């Protein structure tokens, strides 16, 4: 059981896919302008990594080695299209804002990376947990970045005004740079910096 708990918890902080492994940067820059988008994107990635790790782990002893990567891709593509279709049906406005990025989960290195590195060599339940954990780790960073970007870029959280109008009247202005992708990269850099100063073993000698 310790193994499974570890599989789930490690990627959330100690082995976070974004801040430690530095995977999936592209989408985390693109969808973090607003919390809502980041939240749905994080959830989608979590479902995709979890389920595709589970399916690949179930199939792991039957997959022909020569078409291993192709089989993984087909499974991941299946999950991504399903998530995309469900979003289009039940969360149309979010699906419109996320547009191509849901489809691009398939190219997210985290998904394929975890299948190749973990799911093909471990039992299904542990793989599911590993996938979910990695998705959650990804989602967490996305939400943190989106929190700061939406708060300082638009003065809102989840679309609700949180910075009072009085501040704007007194001369406060939203930071336009926060809405642009470079700021996401800078915030991400800050998160990695904080994590490395806490976790000394990550620092290169």
């Amino acid at each position, binding site marked *: 059981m310790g193994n499974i708990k570890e599989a789930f918890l490690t990627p959330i902080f100690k082995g976070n896919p974004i801040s430690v492994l530095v995977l999936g940067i592209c989408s985390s820059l693109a969808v973090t302008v607003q919390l809502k988008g980041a939240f749905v994107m994080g959830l989608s990635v979590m479902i995709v990594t979890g389920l595709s790790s589970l399916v690949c782990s179930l199939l792991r*002893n*039957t*997959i*022909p*080695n*020569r*078409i291993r990567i*192709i*089989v993984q891709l*087909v*499974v991941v*593509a*299946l999950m991504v*299209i*399903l998530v995309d*279709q*469900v979003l*289009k*049906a*039940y969360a*149309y406005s979010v699906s*419109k804002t996320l*547009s*191509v990025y849901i489809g691009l989960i398939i190219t997210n290195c985290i998904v394929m990376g975890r299948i190749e590195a973990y799911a093909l060599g471990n039992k299904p339940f542990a793989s599911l947990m590993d996938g979910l954990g990695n998705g959650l780790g990804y989602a967490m960073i996305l939400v943190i970045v989106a929190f700061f970007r939406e708060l300082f870029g638009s003065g809102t959280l989840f679309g609700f005004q949180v910075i009072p109008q009085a501040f704007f009247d007194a001369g406060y202005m939203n930071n336009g740079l926060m809405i642009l992708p470079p700021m996401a990269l800078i915030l991400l850099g800050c998160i990695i910096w904080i994590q490395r100063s806490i976790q000394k073993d990550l620092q290169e000698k």
Partner: protein
Amino acid sequence: MNTNSNTYTVIYSIILVVIVAAVLAFAAMFLKPTQDANVKKDTIGQILTAATVTGDDILAAYQQEIESAILVDINGEEVGTLNIEECEVYGNSDLKRQIAAEQKALPVYIFKNGITVVPCYGAGLWGPIWGYVGFDKDLKTIKAVRFGHKGETPGLGAKIADEPWFAEAFTGKTVGEGEILFEVAKPANRQTENNGVDAISGATITSQALGKTLDQWFGFYKNYFTKNGITAETVIDAVIDMTGELEPVVESAN
């Protein structure tokens, strides 16, 4: 079993693909009605923006504010109506069909607030672009517009849909009378003042495509506009028609 043999690999991949295809086909069929309803609601939302109508429930607001929704042909004659009860509208695929069709059926949405909305649809840089244009009673002056696109470049061409200032630039512009009905280009390249707006820098092709699309569709509607537009002159004409019989009385009074 030898999982590395050719036969196994081929059979395995065939079975896998068939299963995946079946799952996807089932999901697509199951979710299609909900997705279509969403797309329709989105289309109606865009029409409402062009008609400057707002409301929390889009479908209810549409049913409440619409006066009539008709189909006209290229000569401006009415050839059919759209069902308002069922919120029937022409979606993008319907609009696309009209461009090449010999017998066109072009939708016109007339709202109670006097605004008439007509659609347009054409090719952008990467995929289709479309829009809804709301006209004042004279069917010449633009009141509001709403544009959409499938996949124009984010930050450049996508601005036609995203940037409020671009849509606002259309307000008050009119459809031209000569060769060019409407254009989207930089001021130096525009033929006339009031039947065009500035293009977006960095998005030349999308801007030009939008101008061409608007020009083409305004051309389709040209006859309808001339026949049904209510201008100051047509009002005076109508008044003269109505009071025509009274004129002799007025003269004799002199």
